[in-house]
């Protein structure tokens, strides 16, 4: 068991650097990483088809970082084999094709739940981490509203 397992969580205005983040959560015992990233879609076809010029993200930063740490803690409680975790949300004005969010989990082997851990991480981030985005399109702007209401203890 490593005494110190790397956990990175941050709200940032900087570009998301996948290679650097992956290196930062790779231990000598690490053999596998599952990474999820989300990007700004310029064109959305599902549900309400529309075009996006850019998204404007904002965050309640200190709470968001605390909730990201909570998501990481939840991941470790569910998947004990996870070695490193990185959770990064980029904010500010972000244009189509730009990565906006990253969840990465590492483990010794790939058959240990590392994919499920990353999927859990992005789902939880979208539930409890206080970040909002305003969508700016060719015909105006509109806040994107989530639909999750946190429960006591979350």
């Amino acid at each position, binding site marked *: 068991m490593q005494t110190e397992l790397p956990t990175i969580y941050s709200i940032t205005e900087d570009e998301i650097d996948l290679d650097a983040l992956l290196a930062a959560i790779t231990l000598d015992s690490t053999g596998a990483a599952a990474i999820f990233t989300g990007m700004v879609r310029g064109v959305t076809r599902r549900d309400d088809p529309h075009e996006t010029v850019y998204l404007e*993200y*904002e*965050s*309640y930063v200190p709470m968001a970082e605390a909730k990201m740490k909570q998501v990481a803690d939840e991941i470790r409680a569910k998947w004990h084999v996870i070695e490193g975790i990185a959770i990064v949300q980029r904010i500010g004005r972000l244009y189509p094709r730009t990565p906006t969010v990253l969840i990465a989990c590492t483990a010794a082997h790939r058959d240990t739940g590392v994919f499920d851990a990353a999927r859990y991480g992005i789902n939880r981030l979208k539930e409890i981490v*206080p970040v*909002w985005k305003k969508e700016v399109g060719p015909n105006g702007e509109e806040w*994107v*509203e*989530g639909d999750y209401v946190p429960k006591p203890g979350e």
Partner: protein
Amino acid sequence: MNRIKLLFFATLRDRAGTKSMDIEIPSDLTIQGLKDKLAQDYPNLAQSMSSVIVTINREYAFDEAIVPQNAEIALFPPVSGG
């Protein structure tokens, strides 16, 4: 009385017309009581109060909770990060 800091995000900020304000509230006011007071004092916020999410000192809070001394209270719509 209890002096608290209010923070508004996203649609709540747009409706409040400000990112934050300091206000005085009665001691032992609940979150429900605070929402009622805000709906009365700031009519633009009234329609948001039924679905707003509230935090006390960066933890999710619910209607029955008492607002502590010098609390940092945030009000916002359901999150939409990612």
